[in-house]
Every structure is written in structure tokens, then in C-alpha cells.
């Protein structure tokens, strides 16, 4: 066990994956000599050499498109896109190819690769540096989508993602990179993709979140307990695809109330899907409408006002109270 922040935990996972399997390689702009603009690949270039930690020209479609080719040839590329707001440049490669090759070739050609990208707001960044559009990938059949919320699960999920035989989008909430530390076991551990986790159990209301929004969600849960004597269950989705409907529905059947929390825009976002699935499987248990505390349907504002766009504990608390008093 060693205490570390999420940046270090991801870095650790990358190193472990590369050490364990020589097919694992990294590519992306600035991932090599520089160690990544967030220092996530720091030390890997020195340790594994430029043949396996590849600084590329600045071209997202090429980073993903060549990663697809490498995966087809038998490598296990982990491609970094510098910010989630730039992965639109390569969306066609993911949609048309990474997500389809197995299906298209009836299992003969597969694309075991990971696209990593820092996502989300909260670090006073420039325009296009704070996006959270995991819903686009969730709407793209053939991909898996993972978003960790803590150093330990970041490391375990990344190891799973790299070992996964299919393409995985691994979004890293950049505001968590250095936000807090957690004990991470020395021995590699994995977490199954597609499994949510009940991180706080409760009986009165279910708060569903993931990534950077999990912390304010937990804060709100604490406050509900302290101030209102309300027992909130909190679910950390961890995987967006496959979405763990069972865990969500089981909880809502118990509590009868739910609030979904995420940073991405609301319309057709993850919250919509969660609400639709709860409705499908547990409508009659619902005692109040499911609330969505999400990014609004606007581009995340420039940083002087971005905090008003992001979900925070107060917003979640208010939504929970409204749901409870419905």
C-alpha cells in the first residue's frame, strides 16, 4: 500500500501494464519525452524507450487511427488524446472502426485498445479543455466507457481496460488528478468493467454519480444525514458502458427516489439513460421524479463562471431535498 493521487495511480497502472505485457504501448502528443501535459506518462519513456512510448505528431484522427491498426496487428495500444474536447477530431475513427471491426468481421479482427483522455472542468482551463461528452461514446455501439473517481479505482479500472479485448474509452476527470490521495495496493488489482459500486448505503434516496461529481455527491449525502437525518445511498457508476442497471435498479427499488449527477450536458446525457432505465425496471417503486443535476445544455462557460455550470454539493443537496419532499 502506498498513498498516492490519481495522476500517480494512473501512471502506476500504465507502468504495470507495460511491464506485464510487452504488447502494451503508449502513443500521443507529448506522452514521451515530456511525460504528458498532466505528467500522467512521466517516467515511462525513460523506462520503456521510444519504441513503446511514442510521441506523435499533432493529429487526433491519426493517433486513434494508427492505434486501431496497431491493435489489429497484435499490439495493445493505449492512445492519449490530450483533452476530451479534442477527441471529436477522431470520433469517426472510433465510431466507424474501433467500435465495429469485431462485429464487421464476425470476430476475426479485434481492436483491443484504450483511448485515454482527461475530461471535465474545475481547473480554470481554456475553452475546449473542460468537456465531458461520455454520452457520445455511450451512444456508440461497440465501445466501453470507464470513468474512475479515486486513485485506487482509477488504477484498477485502467488495468482492466488495457486487458480488455475490446476498445475502451477511459476518461480521466482531470480535476481529480491531484485533488486527493488514497492508498493503492502495491500488487496490481483490477475491477470488472460494467460494475457500479454502492459507495455509501442508505435507504431514503439514491444518488447516482461518477467521476468528479462523485465527491460533491458524497458531500451532499453526508449533509443529508447530518442536517436532515436522511439516509442516502450513493452509487458510483465507474463504467458508463456497460451501465450496471442491476445495481441502480436494486437501489431505487429500495429507496424509491433518485438523483443522477454528472458534468456533461443534460439532453441525451448519461442521466437521461439512467432515468430511462430506472423507469423501465422500477417505475412503480418511484415516489418522486428522478432529478438530473448535470451540466446545462450550454458549452461549459469560460473559467470565471464554470463553477456555476458544474454540479456541486449544494445543487445536489437541494435536488435531493426537493425529491424527498415531492
Amino acid at each position, binding site marked *: 500500500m502506498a498513498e498516492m493521487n490519481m495522476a500517480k495511480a494512473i501512471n502506476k497502472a500504465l507502468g504495470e501494464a507495460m511491464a506485464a505485457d510487452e504488447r502494451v*504501448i503508449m502513443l500521443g502528443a507529448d506522452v514521451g519525452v515530456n511525460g504528458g501535459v498532466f505528467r500522467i506518462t512521466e517516467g515511462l519513456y525513460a523506462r520503456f524507450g521510444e*519504441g*513503446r512510448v*511514442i510521441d*506523435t*505528431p499533432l*493529429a487526433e*484522427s*491519426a493517433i*486513434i*487511427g*494508427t*492505434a*486501431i*491498426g*496497431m*491493435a*489489429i*496487428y*497484435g*499490439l495493445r*495500444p493505449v492512445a492519449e488524446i490530450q483533452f476530451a474536447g479534442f477527441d471529436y477530431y477522431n470520433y*469517426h*475513427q472510433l465510431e*466507424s*472502426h474501433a467500435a465495429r471491426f*469485431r*462485429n*464487421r*468481421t*464476425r*470476430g*476475426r*479482427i*479485434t481492436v483491443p485498445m484504450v483511448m485515454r483522455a482527461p475530461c471535465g472542468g474545475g481547473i480554470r482551463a481554456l475553452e475546449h479543455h473542460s468537456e465531458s461528452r461520455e454520452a457520445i461514446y455511450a451512444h456508440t*455501439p*461497440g465501445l*466501453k466507457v470507464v470513468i474512475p473517481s479515486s486513485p485506487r479505482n482509477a488504477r484498477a479500472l485502467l488495468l482492466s481496460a488495457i486487458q*480488455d*479485448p*475490446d476498445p475502451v474509452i477511459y476518461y480521466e476527470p482531470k480535476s481529480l488528478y491531484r485533488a486527493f490521495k488514497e492508498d493503492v495496493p502495491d500488487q496490481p488489482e483490477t475491477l470488472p468493467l*460494467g460494475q457500479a459500486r454502492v459507495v455509501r448505503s442508505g435507504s431514503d434516496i439514491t444518488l447516482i454519480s461518477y467521476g468528479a461529481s462523485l465527491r460533491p455527491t458524497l458531500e451532499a449525502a453526508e449533509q443529508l444525514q447530518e442536517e436532515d437525518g436522511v439516509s442516502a445511498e450513493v452509487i458510483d457508476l465507474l463504467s458508463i458502458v*456497460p*451501465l450496471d*442497471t*442491476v445495481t441502480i435498479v436494486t437501489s431505487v427499488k429500495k429507496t424509491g427516489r433518485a438523483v443522477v449527477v454528472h458534468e456533461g450536458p443534460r439532453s441525451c446525457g448519461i442521466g437521461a439513460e439512467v432515468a430511462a432505465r430506472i423507469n423501465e425496471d422500477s417505475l412503480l417503486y418511484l415516489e418522486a421524479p428522478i432529478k438530473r443535476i448535470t451540466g446545462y445544455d450550454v458549452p461549459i462557460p469560460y473559467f470565471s463562471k464554470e463553477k456555476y455550470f458544474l454540479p456541486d454539493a449544494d445543487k445536489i443537496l437541494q435536488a435531493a431535498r426537493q425529491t424527498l419532499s415531492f
Partner: protein
Amino acid sequence: MPRTPIQLPTNIEYLSILDENAQIDKQLEPILSTADLKRMYHFMLLARRADERMLKLQRQGRIGTFPQSLGHEAISVGAASAIGSSDWHVPAYREFSGMLLRGWPLETLLLYWGGFEEGARPPDGVNDLPYCVPVASQLLHATGIGMAMKIAGDKKVVLTFFGDGSSSEGDFHEALNFASVFQAPVIFVCQNNQFAISVPLSRQMHCATLAQRAVSYGIPGIRVDGNDILAVYAATKEAVDRARQGLGPTLIEGLTYRTTAHTTSDDPKKYRSPEEEQLWSSRDALIRFRRYLADRGIMDESARISLEAEIEQEIKEAVRKFEEAAGDKELLNPLHMFDYLYAETPEFLERQRNELQQFLASRSAGPGRMEAKSGESAGRDP
């Protein structure tokens, strides 16, 4: 030197060996065995004849829209003949002839155009990607495969194809740039048939040749007569040898003409003249190659006739196999649409599979409606 010309690489060339009158340039004539030459002709002709047959199948509604490849046989077969079976072949959608040569059974390709994913499954042992529809995107896969070969230390090469129109896509630029920066063993072959559907070259690019785009990547570029299979072969062979030695990628432009429509949905009368079509027909690759083979005593008239017969048989057999497969219960089972998304089908997809399964079961119990409607749509599909 305040105002000085920048020295550009001088290795951008034009190559022609077997001209449209079947005159051969002896100095440049590539060394190819009789067997090789026969094989090349075999697949050119097979593609030509199969293509003609497929047009009929399409008109009968037995396969869907497809892009004929007449006029493309020399580039596709010529280039593919210059790589080995452990090398990789990454086509666009007009490399029908080359794919046949690489080992794709004709019936498999018929399945593809007949609307079955099974037709996109490369046969075991064939190091090819399937047809690629979104233009230029495959060039990046080829580059990635080449980069991986280099990382693995394998002395293999990748051969990939694209059209003149496709070279306007950003992915073209990114692929050539990556391949050149990483000196990946990739041979990029442009099938310049002078049209992207209806858009002519002059609307596609402002430069005189596609080959000169090699200057942007500091790599060799060559334009060849795309109806001259010997020139295509020779240029590709040179590029393959360079790539195998670690000397990086090459851009080859084969200048040809799309003899027929863009696809079976297209009407070229809208945008080009019969005179132009006529002119290019006279430059046909098969005619001159046949004459070359005759001149070299490799294939006389009777051999040619028996080859035609053999190929007719081959096609007949393939069509039979295709129709058999296309009627196969397993291949037609719609539930398979859920089975190949992931190595392990996740719960949410299982549920959708069950949903469809139950629906189909219940419907086959009750009165069917769907079949009545299947012929309804009157749309065109380019």
C-alpha cells in the same frame, strides 16, 4: 542568400513500361516468372468477368449496390502482386481484383455485396483488412499496422489503396505524415480514376499530379500509367523493397479511368462525355497485357479461350456457393447482430437480444406483417 529557391526532392517521377499499343520498354521490363504473369492475368480477367456478372446480379436484386472496378484491375492486381502473403493488404472498396488475388473467395465478396457481414470476414491466413467504406480512414489503419510491424521488428510491409477524391480527406494527410515521420513500411497507392463520383480531378485538387504530394512528406512519389500492370508492379516492387529495408513509405499514383459508373446507383452520363469514355476504353489494361502475354508466347489464343471457360466455371461455382450461403438459416439469423460487438456480450445487450428474440417468436406465432413490407422502399442507394 536573401531570396533563394528551396531545393525540392527530385524523386517525383512518371513511369510507363507497357504502353497502350502494347509496346514494351525492354530496359524497364520487370522480371516476372511465367507463372506470376499468368496469375496476374488470371485475376484481372476473373475480376472483369465477375464484375460483369455482378452487375446482372445487382440488377436482379440478388446483391445490393456495388462499385464496379473495371479500369482498376491493373493497379489493384499489379500492386498486390508485389507483396507477399505475410505482408498486409488494406483496400478501399475498388480493390476487388486484388482481393481475389490475395485469397478472398469470390463467394465471400459476393456475400459482402449481398449484405452479409460474413463477407467482410477475412479468410483465415489472409492478412487483409476488409473493404473500407468511409474514405481515407483505412490509410491510418495501414499506417498503424506498419508502425506495429516496425515496433515488432517484423520485416513486412503494408499495401494500401485510396481514390483521387479520398486524397482530399484529412485522414489522407495524417496517414502520410505519420507514415513518413515514423518511416513506416507502407505503400500508399492512389487509384486516380479522375472522378470522385461526379467530381472531376480539377475540382478535387489544384496540383498537377497526386504523386507530387510526396513532397509534403519528404518521401518518394511516383505516377505510373495505371493501365500498365508492369509499371504498377515495378513501381510497387521498388517501394516494397525500400520499405522492407526500413526506408519508409512511398506514394504511388496510378492514373486510370473509371470505365463504368461510380456504383450501380450512379449515372455517369450526367457528368462525362462518351468521347472521353471511349478514349479511355482504348487504353484498357487487359487488352495490352493480353497482347504482351501473347507476344512473349506465354498465352496464345487457345490458352486464353480455355482460361475464359475456366473462369466462367469459377464464377458459376462461386455464385452458387454465395446463393447457398445467402439462404443459410444461421447466416440469416438476425440475433447474431448482438453476438460480435464485444468478446463477451454484456447484460444490457443480452436484454436487447432477448427482446428481439421474444418479438420474433411472438410474431412467428401470430400473423406476420413484416414480409409484406420488405419490398416497399423505393429509395436509391449510391
